[in-house]
């Protein structure tokens, strides 16, 4: 080939049309809606039985019950034990799983189509006849509590937890996972009741995709689910999201962290918003992929990070927009600067025709790739039906993308991306990050990885390299409504970590992993009081052998001031 022909990218060949399959739809007498897409490419079948209620619909005093109920469906039924179910499913080479998300609950099953009938038997068994055995629930609870602890070692979880709390306030979306106490409270009776009230055919849709015959598929579902009794679907009313008034900075201190996990977030759109397609294209230009602006800037030009992206999560009742990157600690502030540059640029400048077309071409072209596997096609179909998108959603998707204009991109960027009201959440080493990031907000809060609030001031010290040694026995006096109460604080310091105990009239509390920065101490003491673990937070400033500061605990409304001195 001549050099000349190599110089420019080749023209594409003639396009080949991609025809999305059309559905067959019907409803059983009990209200169960059935939608079937024939997909005969390979001998496979996929089922999704989805319910129009999820974690957000849980009763406030039963957090975590939706996930528990879904998980427990396959842990025992009227006819089979947990082990028998696992063996029956896996002996078919099939998979069945059940899970809940914020808005929906879904049972997903797939297998070779030759085992269609056996698979559907098992789906109906776990959905209609779960027995929620006590022993299995106990195991679920203990494993879930361990898992919740494990999550706290993951920076991504910690960032998501704070982001949701700030954006969603009193709305149930604010809670990304239940607390160990929530899980502890779950009971078999609670699950039985929750299952009876929410697993209703008139609150569900059965989506079938695969190598099936339409009439047989309807008859197969009907014979197994027709005796399922409908019930009253409880409507949930939700509090509004809080209105962001200023930019906030929230740091989760993860001492020694090699990286800062940065999230910048605004509340954005729900899934049915008319701004969905403009937002999709805008996000593609700004940060959805490896050729988008923030990736090109933070990774390709600056080398701050392995990847920098923006994304949006459009849920049933609202959602958020996030810009995220994991960057090395030393460039946390520089990364914020580049993020804000890009957030402002997409709001203030019109996107070029070329960038717009590139983003749209990507979204249009990648659509058939996403539908290449039955799993991928099924996911597209599921999101259409769960969110009540138009019947021709799959057919018109690419036209809807193509119709987005440059002005639409700028409009949705201006409307939803609010750099002056954005929530900045950073998980990393607070002593390194705070000075880099604090100029971005007057509202600064710091938490430890357990979600306890720390005093940001302890990081604001002139660093002379070495933290003060706070080791020793401290006799402190607390001012409680004018009364002086003695407490004793025993500390041993290693590096910048302090361990020890706090002795109060209420009992002894263990201190593990307290932080010393310069002459500031921040530590939590876990104290057992009448069978409950109460956390006392100590924030102190040390001056030679004297210390002053505050002690706070959930049982007292305001932090209590203390002063005291050390006997070495």
């Amino acid at each position: 080939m001549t050099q000349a022909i190599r110089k420019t990218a080749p023209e594409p060949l003639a396009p080949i049309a991609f025809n999305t399959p059309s559905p067959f739809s019907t409803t059983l007498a009990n209200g169960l809606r059935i939608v079937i897409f024939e997909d005969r490419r390979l001998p496979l079948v996929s089922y999704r039985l989805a319910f129009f209620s999820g974690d957000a619909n849980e009763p406030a005093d039963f957090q975590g019950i939706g996930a528990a109920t879904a998980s427990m469906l396959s842990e025992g039924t009227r006819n089979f034990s947990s082990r028998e179910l696992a063996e029956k499913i896996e002996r078919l080479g099939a998979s069945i799983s059940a899970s809940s998300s914020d808005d929906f609950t879904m049972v997903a099953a797939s297998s070779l189509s030759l085992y269609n009938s056996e698979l559907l038997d098992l789906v109906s068994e776990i959905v209609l006849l779960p027995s929620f055995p006590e022993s299995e629930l106990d195991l679920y609870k203990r494993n879930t509590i361990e898992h919740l602890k494990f999550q706290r070692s993951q920076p991504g979880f910690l960032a998501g937890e704070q982001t949701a709390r700030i954006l969603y306030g009193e709305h149930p979306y604010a809670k990304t996972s239940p607390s160990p106490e929530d899980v502890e409270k779950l009971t078999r009776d609670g699950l039985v009741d929750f299952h009876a009230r929410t697993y209703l055919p008139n609150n569900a849709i059965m989506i079938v995709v695969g190598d099936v015959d339409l009439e047989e598929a309807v008859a197969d579902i009907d014979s197994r689910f027709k005796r399922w009794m409908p019930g009253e679907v409880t409507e949930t009313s939700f509090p509004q999201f809080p209105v962001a008034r200023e930019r906030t900075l929230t740091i989760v201190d993860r001492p020694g962290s090699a990286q800062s996990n940065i999230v910048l977030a605004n509340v954005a759109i729900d899934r049915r918003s008319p701004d969905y397609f403009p937002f999709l294209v805008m996000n593609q230009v700004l940060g959805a992929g490896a050729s988008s602006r923030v990736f090109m800037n933070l990774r390709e030009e600056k080398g701050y990070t392995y990847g920098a992206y923006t994304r949006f999560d459009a849920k049933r009742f609202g959602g958020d927009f996030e810009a995220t990157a994991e960057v090395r600690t030393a460039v946390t502030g520089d990364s914020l600067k580049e993020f804000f540059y890009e957030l402002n640029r997409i709001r203030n400048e019109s996107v070029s025709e070329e960038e717009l077309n590139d983003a749209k071409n990507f979204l249009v072209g990648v659509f058939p790739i996403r539908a290449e596997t039955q799993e991928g096609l099924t996911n597209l179909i599921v999101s259409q039906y769960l969110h009540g998108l138009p019947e021709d959603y799959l057919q018109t998707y690419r036209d809807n993308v193509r119709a987005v204009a440059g002005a639409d991109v700028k409009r949705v960027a201006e409307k939803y991306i609010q750099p002056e009201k954005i929530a900045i959440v950073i998980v990393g080493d607070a002593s390194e990050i705070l000075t880099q990031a604090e100029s971005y907000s007057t509202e600064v809060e710091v938490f430890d990885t357990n979600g306890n609030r720390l005093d940001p001031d302890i990081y604001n010290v002139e660093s002379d390299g070495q933290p003060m040694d706070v080791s020793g026995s401290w006799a402190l006096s607390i001012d409680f409504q004018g009364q002086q109460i003695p407490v004793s604080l025993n500390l041993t310091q290693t590096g910048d970590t302090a361990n020890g105990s706090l002795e109060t009239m209420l009992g002894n509390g263990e201190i593990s992993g307290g932080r010393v920065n310069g002459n500031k101490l921040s530590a939590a003491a876990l104290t057992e009081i009448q069978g409950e673990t109460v956390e006392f937070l100590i924030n102190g400033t040390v001056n030679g052998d004297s210390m002053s500061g505050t002690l706070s605990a959930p049982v007292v409304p305001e932090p209590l001031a203390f002063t005291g001195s050390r006997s070495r």
Partner: protein
Amino acid sequence: MSEAFKLAPLHIEEYSLENGLRVVLNRDDAVPVVAVAVYFNVGSRNEREGRTGFAHLFEHMMFQGSENVPKAGHFQFIMKAGGTMNGTTSSERTNYFETLPASQLPLALWLESDRMRSLAVTQENLDNQREAVKEEKRLRYDNQPYGQIFDLINEMIYKNFANSHSTIGSMEDLDDATVHDVQEFFRIYYAPNNAVLVISGSFDPKTAKQLVDSYFGDIPTQALPEDIDVNEPSEVAETYREWEDKLAPFPAFLIGWKIPPRRTPKFNALYLAGKTLYDGDSSRLYQKLVKGDESVIQLFGFTDERRGPSSIFIGAIPKPEMDLSKIRAAIMSEVRNISEHGPTADEMQKMHNQLINDTVRMRQSSMTRAQHIAEYTLYDGDPALINMELDELLNVTPDQIRDAVREYLNTDNRSLLDVVPAGKG
């Protein structure tokens, strides 16, 4: 049931260009999508001491532009055409792949051929990608609880440096990489006669061949790199190590065994033994440890397939206060049971259905097909093995599994890595 199940063979056409590039076409018109995979016969196994992490650093350099494609242009061209792409590095090979609307086959071949022909290696690109790789190392390994344990156990299993060192490499070695090193690496390993090109999906074979010929035909052949020695003694290098993990919230352990190369009858038998032990909720160890004894939070296991000596791992994150040695004894007691009795008839039937199911699902994606075909071509010299892979596994007998477990797993010749949380105090 499984005996009656017959899969239609995939259509495979194989040929070579004069410069030695091996080309495989797998036409399948189910969806108007085409996947292109280019596999180079170079991985971390080719790295010597003091130069670890090069194969992977080089993978990043392949996205930094070539004579007619600007820096980062590869991403851009693929994405604006509606495609997806990536590259990965393992001990065995470095691969590059893209999936595009079928009409964009010429673009994929233009991009892949331009960088095979004329990669742009500059100091600036090298410095920038070195930083990106260091961030990747921090993100995936250094800043993750348990993120380093798989690299550590490979050091414990393998004695040969070609096998034992990590793919991500060391920060020091990455710092030492010079532009000259990178250029030499390119010349030696990124030659057409050291590569395999696979096209899978919807295309006209005649057009595809013409395009391949015109884009790749004039890339010059290079002397092939020297063969490397990946041989190992059968003993593991180190049987026990304790590792303090600052980010781990719980203790954990990982057991590794050294086993025969991929696709040997013994490797296949051990792969299936692994499935019996740890794959799925009805597997022996899940039922025993997660369910019966309720002693572990998480159980996992997998095989690492290599052309040379390979490995199999079983690991667990036990519940707090659990006696780790008891859990390990329980694992070894199941291993012993299989070494004496083999898997049951029920277990064999389950495995057969799972293998068939997995194979059918694998065939849905043109990219997955292309990747499997490329491996068989590069490692075994025969792309048509993709049509035999299911039968190869279905034909393994329970006795073969029993005997392989007896020889390789039910032995003290194994590596144990104990992870101790060191975050607090």
